[in-house]
């Protein structure tokens, strides 16, 4: 399986010791040949005779529904969410809209030695020269995600105080949902015991997808089916997220087409990683550094009147940071100014912040990045020893800036050096701003979603998780 996936996916799904052809329930022949050699019968698998035949096509959905490997999914994904597919949709005359993550901007900024704002403006120029209609910013939709997450936290917190039996209380800790590697791992490996704790709010990627296809398209004079929406993400696993069944819908205005498979839309049609965008820049032989800077598309971008980028602190989305501040203020009347006092627990990828009121710890939040820390938190959850109110879990060590889709370190640069550089660049000339003060987001509530936590907001911005039953085949292979 590809190194591109996060560790959680690589651990959680790989079942391909027996080679994908055998582990996969859809196709039993014609995939990758296995370097089979005599091995002690620790594994109950007969040796496969290599059969020459036509490869069987497997859809990504088949793969996601299966508890076996995702090795085949990778191939499918590369076809469905590739640069070729992206370029072909532009040439087909689709209205291509791009949403760029702030982590991807930082990675490109570090690579080219320019600021994230310059990257964003040059990217806008570059994509528009290819025929892209509009370029937006997922830190904008992230503010909406964060506000909805604050609402969800408040309701979970209140619910947890109604329930006396702490052990059976599944409302807290609340766990972030933005990391698709974590979600996939939780669904496939951990199942029902942890899923109720995961935030119902969609990730910034899916939130911006929902805004564009359910709301903004009308402003732009487009029907959802005319739009091809592409996100640029630091993470390979985001491709899997975009392909989830939960993010598929049928346009409301076209009743006559219902039941027709072709009429199914996705909030995000394709995900390109930062690395793939760099590849595209190189493919087009564009001198990116000297490319002219274009003005930014304002409808879904965190850019102030004065031309500054703005957003929350926290390079993995600032979930713990934002919700902690909101809870401290709303529940305990404590307004916290300046950076929160996160303390390392065991290693820099596990940090904790607490609020004390009258000598009592009333809020305990943690950042938990990387597979090893994730394991320990899961262990605590399982044994009922987890006393956190909120966990910001990301599968990658160092979080999203170090996502598998980011540009690799330059020659002579250690991963740690790059990671520190990215942390600095990420907030370089970016103004820290409260999500609740974001004028774009306020506008979305005023004109569309009514108010934070409304039924309409829940309908468009909330999602669900499903434990994946172990298939019989995968259990057999697990004999």
């Amino acid at each position, binding site marked *: 399986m590809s190194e591109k996936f996060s*560790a959680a996916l690589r651990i959680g799904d790989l079942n391909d010791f027996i080679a994908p052809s055998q582990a996969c329930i859809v196709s039993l022949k014609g995939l990758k040949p296995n370097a089979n050699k005599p091995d002690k019968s620790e594994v109950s698998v007969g040796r496969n005779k290599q059969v020459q035949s036509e490869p069987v096509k497997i859809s990504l959905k088949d793969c996601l529904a299966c508890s076996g490997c995702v090795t085949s999914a990778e191939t499918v994904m590369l076809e469905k969410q590739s640069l070729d597919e992206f370029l072909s949709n532009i040439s087909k005359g689709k209205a291509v809209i791009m949403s760029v993550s702030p982590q991807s901007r930082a990675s490109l900024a570090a690579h080219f030695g320019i600021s994230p704002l310059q990257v964003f403006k040059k990217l806008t120029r570059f994509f528009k020269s290819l025929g892209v209609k509009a370029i937006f910013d997922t830190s904008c939709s992230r503010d909406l995600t964060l506000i909805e997450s604050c609402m969800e936290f408040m309701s979970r917190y209140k619910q947890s105080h109604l329930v006396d039996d702490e052990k059976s209380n599944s409302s807290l800790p609340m766990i972030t949902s933005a990391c698709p590697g974590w979600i996939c791992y939780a669904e496939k490996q951990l199942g029902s015991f942890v899923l109720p704790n995961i935030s119902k709010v969609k990730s910034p990627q899916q939130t911006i997808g929902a805004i564009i296809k359910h709301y903004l398209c009308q402003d732009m004079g487009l029907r959802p089916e005319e739009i091809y929406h592409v996100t640029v993400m630091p993470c390979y696993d985001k491709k899997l997220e975009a392909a989830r069944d939960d993010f598929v819908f049928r346009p409301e205005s076209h009743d006559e087409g219902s039941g027709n498979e072709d009429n199914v839309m996705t909030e995000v049609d394709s995900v390109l990683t930062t690395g793939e965008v760099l590849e595209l820049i190189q493919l087009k032989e564009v001198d990116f550094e000297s490319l002219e800077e274009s003005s930014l598309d304002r409808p879904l971008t965190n850019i102030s009147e004065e031309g500054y980028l703005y957003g929350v602190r926290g390079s993995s989305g600032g979930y713990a940071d934002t919700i902690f501040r909101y809870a401290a203020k709303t529940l305990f009347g404590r307004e916290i100014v300046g950076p929160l006092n996160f303390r390392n627990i065991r*290693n820099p990828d596990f940090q904790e912040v607490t609020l004390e009121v009258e000598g009592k710890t009333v809020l305990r939040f943690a950042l938990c990045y990387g597979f090893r820390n994730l394991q320990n938190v899961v262990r605590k959850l399982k044994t009922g020893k987890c006393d956190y109110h909120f966990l910001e879990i990301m599968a990658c060590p160092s979080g999203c800036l170090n996502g598998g889709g980011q540009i690799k370190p330059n020659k002579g640069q250690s991963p740690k050096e790059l990671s520190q550089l990215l942390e600095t660049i990420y907030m370089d000339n970016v103004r820290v701003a409260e999500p609740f003060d974001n004028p774009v987001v306020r506008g979305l509530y005023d004109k569309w979603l009514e108010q934070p936590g409304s039924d309409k907001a829940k309908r468009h911005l909330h999602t669900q998780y499903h434990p994946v039953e172990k298939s019989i085949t995968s259990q057999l292979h697990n004999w």
Partner: protein
Amino acid sequence: METLELKEIQRLEGHTDRVWSLAWNPATGHNGVPLLFASCSGDKTVRIWEQNLSSGLWSTKAVLDEPHTRTVRSCAWSPSGKLLATASFDATTAIWENVGGDYECVSTLEGHEHEVKSVSWNASGNLLATCSRDKSVWIWEVLPGNEFECVSVLQGHTQDVKMVKWHPTMDILFSCSYDNTIKVWADEGDSDDWQCVQTIGEPNNGHTSTVWALSFNANGDKMVTCSDDLTLKIWESENIGMQSGGGFRPWRHLCTLSGYHDRTIFSVHWSREGIFASGAADDAIRLFVDDNESQVGGPLYKLLLKKEKAHDMDINSVQWSPGEKPLLASASDDGTIKVWELVSQR
């Protein structure tokens, strides 16, 4: 002229399926404490065997038949002999504590996706490593109160990892795999996580098929590995024991012992006296020693003896006991364990 022979002391029956592995308790066999070892099997149980000091014979002291739901593939005692770790195909590793002669399961380590193949404690007993068919190697830290915390999940092998083994004196971890390589893992440099510091594969005179096991000599400056490629290989490293400041010294190929085996070699174990034993699919046990009379460029180790038909089926594990006069124990697919003594015949 003196010849040596492996004399069977006892044939131990009890397991109802193949015996995969065994481990001697390092705190036994001296100061009047009777020798004791654990064995684990396809019958999902672990058996604890103890020697009777007066008769010298062995009997089952305990049978641990919970909580593993599938084959128990490997077991290992902590250096103090107080804790026993058992690795199972049920994807868990159980930790047992000896409480007044009774064995209590005090912790279960979950996380591996598939069969756990091997488990090993470091020299000071504060770290535990496991490896699995899921290709990963995990390192756990032992905390007070029998709490275990995951320190690292290492992904480097491209296939099933067969064995993990800590260096006898330093916190360096070795793993060997179905991908034919041996990997060396250390926690050093500016990274705050463990990383692979050396991969010994075919291009570095490594094995050409599955590497099943490895073992260190008493000093820890030499390592022997055994493989499905029918060879044993000896590796050496400099300045072992001078870890501070010196950085990691890579392991070098010293020699390859080929031509002695014609079936897969599953197990190899080096005694403190310098004799290493191999257990193989040909049901035989072989012992090798330093070859003092070796010519320059010639083989450095020679076959001391070969015990044909040591078992009726494959030998999965051979282990030397602690104590003054080491015994050898062997575990086999035939469901039995045998205890051997190396005796000289005139």
